[in-house]
């Protein structure tokens, strides 16, 4: 692995333009990610199945300015009749890091292509940064950085020449600042040292980072990244995650799709979960966790007695088998439950309060294994 790859996202050379300092300052202002879980507006993010983002709000103000991405009934049916995206209502609050989760083939990339105007929805519509699409595409897209379905570049050009090509294509880009902006984008993704190398000589991680660099050529209000860590090794994944945090710390809304839950869990404040073209969950990460309340599980040789004690404590859903008893924990404190059990003479061999892992929730929402319905 080359030197520049190792240094990516962490040990920035201190003599470079002080941008690393700027980011960390911004990060402090923004606070830890957990505190930003609630959208700035303070409004609850509508769940899928409930009212869409454009309905049920009062007046023309309608809070759409708070949403970086809002879609209503966005649908794509391909010519062969396959329903790739089925009426999804996205609500991505401005300033959040939104994880767009779903197994491969669940419609994530098709949704992103519709958001960016690459393909036309067969039904429904959406807004980006408060402007209705596709009418506002040319006005809004300069403020939106994107990476769609993996890196795509000119193989015979260097990394820098590739960025220059895309910058030249941008109808809003200023030629006079191009060089500085390109170098800065390369620096942010840690490719400055490899900028002169041919793209075809890049490793997969470098290609992914160059693709992210394209989305950083201009100051953006929204960055949409489709599977930015696809095919990367753990090191590369970590680097991209750090980069996403840095982008978000600048106050940019980040919409990142992934089929890897761990990635979303570590970087995102909000999640939308896709399953076979439908948005089966949308909300904050905390709301996703709350979908499944923690239980208390007691291992004991006297399950009947333990079950009675838990029922006396008014815990719900008490179930028991030969070795253990479990119930919904609710508001009860596990140590108090333990004390009560012991006082009642229950021999407590082990006591646990397992929270379902996000992994479990994800699998519950999206289905096991490879069962891509239809």
């Amino acid at each position, binding site marked *: 692995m080359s030197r520049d790859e190792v240094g990516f996202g962490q040990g920035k050379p201190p003599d470079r*333009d*002080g*941008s690393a300092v*700027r980011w960390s300052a911004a990060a402090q202002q923004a606070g830890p990610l957990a505190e930003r879980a609630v959208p700035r507006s303070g409004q609850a993010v509508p769940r899928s199945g409930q009212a869409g983002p454009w309905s049920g709000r009062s007046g023309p103000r309608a809070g759409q300015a708070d949403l970086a991405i809002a879609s209503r009934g966005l649908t794509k049916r391909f010519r062969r009749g396959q329903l790739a995206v089925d009426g999804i209502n996205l609500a991505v609050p401005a300033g959040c890091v939104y994880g767009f989760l779903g197994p491969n083939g669940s419609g994530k990339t098709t949704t992103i*292509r519709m958001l*960016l*105007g*690459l*393909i*036309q929805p067969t039904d429904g519509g959406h807004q980006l940064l408060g402007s209705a699409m596709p009418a506002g*595409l*040319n006005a809004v*897209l*300069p403020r*939106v950085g*994107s990476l*769609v*379905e*993996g*890196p*795509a*570049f*000119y*193989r*015979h050009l260097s990394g820098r020449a590739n960025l*220059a*090509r*895309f910058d*030249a*294509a*941008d*109808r*809003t*880009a*200023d*030629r006079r*600042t191009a060089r*500085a*902006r390109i*170098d*800065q984008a390369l620096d942010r993704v840690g490719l400055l040292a490899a900028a002169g190398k041919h793209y075809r000589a890049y490793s997969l991680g470098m290609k992914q980072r160059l693709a992210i660099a*394209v989305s950083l050529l*201009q*100051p953006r209000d929204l960055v949409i990244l489709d599977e930015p860590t696809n095919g990367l090794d753990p090191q590369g994944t970590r680097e991209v995650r750090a980069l996403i945090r840095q982008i978000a710390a600048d106050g940019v809304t980040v919409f990142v799709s992934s089929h890897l839950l761990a990635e979303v869990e570590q970087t995102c404040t909000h999640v939308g979960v896709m399953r076979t073209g439908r948005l089966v969950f949308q909300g904050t990460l905390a709301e996703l966790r709350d979908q499944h309340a923690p239980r208390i599980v007691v291992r004991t040789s006297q399950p009947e007695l333990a079950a009675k004690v838990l029922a006396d404590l008014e815990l719900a859903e008490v179930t028991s088998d030969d070795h253990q008893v479990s119930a919904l924990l609710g508001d009860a404190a596990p140590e108090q439950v333990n004390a009560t059990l012991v006082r009642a003479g229950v021999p407590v061999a082990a006591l646990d309060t397992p929270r379902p892992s996000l992994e479990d929730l994800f699998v519950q929402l999206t289905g096991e294994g490879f069962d891509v319905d239809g």
Partner: protein
Amino acid sequence: MSTADQAVQAGPARPASLGPVLRWLRFFWSELSLIFRRPRNLAMLAVIAAIPVLLGVVLKVSAPAAGNGPAFVNQVTQNGVFLTLAALVVMLTVFLPLAVAVVAGDSVAGEAASGTLRTLLTVPAGRTRLLLVKFSAVLVFCLAACLLVAVAALLTGFLLFPVGRVTLLSGTTIPLADGLLRVLLVVLYATAGLAAIGAIGLALSCLTEHPLAAMAALMVIVIASEIADSVSQISAAHPYLPTHWLLSWDGLLRAPVDSAVTEHGLLSFAAYAVIFGSIAWARLGAADITS
């Protein structure tokens, strides 16, 4: 603070006064450098430059018997300037259309195949704007290829043959400089003819994600058109064939210039460019980019 930072922080107030034309030119320039720095295209241009040289050498070694060979070939041994015209006649049948097919067929389909089309459109380059840049670049390539043939042939002609006052088809003799001007007119006319073929290639390129398919389809069209053009039974259809007027620049070599036929040819080229440009525009403007 670096200039980059200043540029970024000046973001929201991005200069709007900078003419869209300048930015279009920058995009156009980037497209041209993509075409003219591509090793494949450079190799093609090298071959295009080499063939007139070969033709000159062959004619020097063994002058054809009078009345044989392509047009203008017999005059070459008397006046090297005619090598440019002989070379254009030879090149316009296969080699130049082939080169245009490669560049035009690759223009949009090549971007689609490599995935760069989706990046260009999300940058956003604008679909119509992208198509205009692509067609303009194909046009420049046509001009460059024709000029290359003419210049290579002219240099060879100057080296191998006597050069002097040019005797036109109408029998008039004009000074060398005027003769070269006539050659330039022929080059421009041939460029227009190739650009019409390029427009067909651009439309084909918008219909597929496989650049080779677009190139092959365009070559099939060119060759089929040339074959149809030689079948006298369908002579009524000849004026509507895309390649029919490609060599109809005799009128430019008369004194005074007889522009009736060339005007007809230019009209045909313009019609092809407009029709297939519209097809390309309609197709790319509405297409779902799934590549």
